[in-house]
């Protein structure tokens, strides 16, 4: 298994390289650019512009810039932000934990709720419980994330004053776990709702299919309790597609986090990406795209490995 994992990691390298080339092309191909902000400034002469262009290395051909970027990137020098002059690596290192903290909580909450809901709606098909959650999940799948966020802010934040409207913690206060968790409630609810809707639907369909398999009937026939047949035999098999879906959704969660971070003033990667995109901060954009591509490739690998653990029929060769 570890040999398989390392080989898959090696295979992921060309993909990552391809993604980095594509990111570089996309970021540089679009019109605008970091100098466009100065072009109409009266105090800046064309000569200044030229000097600035040279300083930033933008006067070199594209492939030279890419190779320079790549070699520097691999040695840990991710460049400096055009906007803040800070090192990109430091900026990302500052934001990434905040996003992982939010996303991690969302992931745990989503799975903790989606699995029981999926299982229960499947074993009690067409009950009121099933109908309720089927309706709720259709709502979850049809709702723009940001609207749910706004509604939660209006109802729970502005009207009932139960939860803070944004930020990660009360500004200026000392570290306080309860305060931290309190700030987490609204963004996590916003992001989890869609995830729960999505995964529980998936698990329900998959459970329904599995529960009618012969081996479940066999398990029941040889005297296994219903509970044990459902949770030990059916769930383990039915959860297989969920593992892939959950891993492949990781980039989507990143994206959901962008809008949610925006609404709740969460200082994470999504907002960093947003700020950098709106001010053509190429080095930061490249760093973020590289990190997110790496996360996605790793998530795919994790899904494959988990697949093998859950389904021993799959042999890696």
């Amino acid at each position, binding site marked *: 298994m570890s040999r398989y994992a390392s080989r898959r990691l090696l295979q992921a390298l060309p993909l990552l390289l*391809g993604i980095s080339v594509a990111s570089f092309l996309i970021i540089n191909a679009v019109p605008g650019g970091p100098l466009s902000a100065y072009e109409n400034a009266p105090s800046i002469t064309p000569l200044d512009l030229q000097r600035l262009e040279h300083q930033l290395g933008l006067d070199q051909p594209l492939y030279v810039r890419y190779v320079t970027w790549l070699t520097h990137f691999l040695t840990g020098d991710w460049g400096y932000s055009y906007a803040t002059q800070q090192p990109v690596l430091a900026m990302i290192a500052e934001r990434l934990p905040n996003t992982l903290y939010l996303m991690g909580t969302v992931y745990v909450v989503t799975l903790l709720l989606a699995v029981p809901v999926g299982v229960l709606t499947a074993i009690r098909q067409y009950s009121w419980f099933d109908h309720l959650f089927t309706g709720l999940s259709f709502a979850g799948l049809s709702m723009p994330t940001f609207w749910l966020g706004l509604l939660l802010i209006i109802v729970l934040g502005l009207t009932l004053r139960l939860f803070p409207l944004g930020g990660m913690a009360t500004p200026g206060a000392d570290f306080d776990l309860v305060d931290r968790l309190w700030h987490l409630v609204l963004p996590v609810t916003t992001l989890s709702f869609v995830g729960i809707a999505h995964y529980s639907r998936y698990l329900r369909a998959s459970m329904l299919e599995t529960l009618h398999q012969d081996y479940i009937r066999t398990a029941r026939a040889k005297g296994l309790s219903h509970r044990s047949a459902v949770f030990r035999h059916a769930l383990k098999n039915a959860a297989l597609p969920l593992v892939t879906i959950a891993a492949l959704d990781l980039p989507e969660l990143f994206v959901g986090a962008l809008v949610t971070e925006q609404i709740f003033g969460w200082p994470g990667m999504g907002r960093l990406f947003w700020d950098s995109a709106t001010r053509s901060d190429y080095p930061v954009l490249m760093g973020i795209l590289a990190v997110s591509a790496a996360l996605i490739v790793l998530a795919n690998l994790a899904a494959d490995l988990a697949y093998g653990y859950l389904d021993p029929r799959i042999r890696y060769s």
Partner: protein
Amino acid sequence: MATWTRASATPEAALADLGLPDHAGPWRLALERFLAHRLAVASLAALLLLVVLVLFGPTLSPYNPEHTNLNLRYEPPSPTHLMGTDSLGRDLLTRIMFGGRVSMTIGVLAMTVAITLGVVLGGLAGFYGGVADALLMRFVDMMLSFPRLFLLILFSVFFGGHFLTVVLLLGALSWMGVSRIIRASFLSLKERQFVEAAKALAVPNRVIMTRHLLPNALAPIIVAATLGIATAIIAESTLSFLGLGIQPPTPSWGNMLKDAQTDMSIAPWTAVFPGLAIFVTVVAINFIGDGLRDALDPQHVIRSARR
């Protein structure tokens, strides 16, 4: 003379060509199955009502969606302003109906672009195979490795939020799923005997693809197209919410919610109603898509009935 150009693509068309009644053609059966899906039919009715409202509402409304009236700022919903007014005293209902034109049109057009790209690229890749196919599929893999919103934002920042650029961007970033579906069904369909027969009759590849393969792959395309409108409407509203989509003063459901973000402590209705419009539209489209899937893919229904 060249009868193959008029070769019937579907069994009931064949029956019609022979002058036979088509009592139970597959499309007729599909229609019957769709009508049996009560939620989907109700959703279709609701959606049609919404479309009519959005099309004719702005003309019937006494208010102008861009006319500001500072004496009437933040009026709560009342008989004169059914959904209240916004920060500039504009009638919210009129703006929502007007914004609906924008949002729905973008949804349909972006879906059309995405489906066209997906069908053409996926179809060619599936039919011809080879290097082009391998390259295209790797390209699709790579496109799917980027979070879609990241790309949307990057391109929108630089290309600006004009109506047409929003449509083209949404379409250009949403065709990958469809291309995979079409490629897969063309791959299996082209091995069938009717294709072999067509080839033996020297039917050109272009005709084989459009007259013989495409009609047989239509069911998943129709479902994907329906759901694609919903996805595009949500994507447009997200972009406009971030300030990159449709630019004010032209209302779209997304940019109305962007304004609402600053107003919602004083005027919560400005945040509730535009979102509700998106929500109702998307729910309806999703239910219709569900009904179409059941109607067009009988295997799927048989499988669920057996459960």
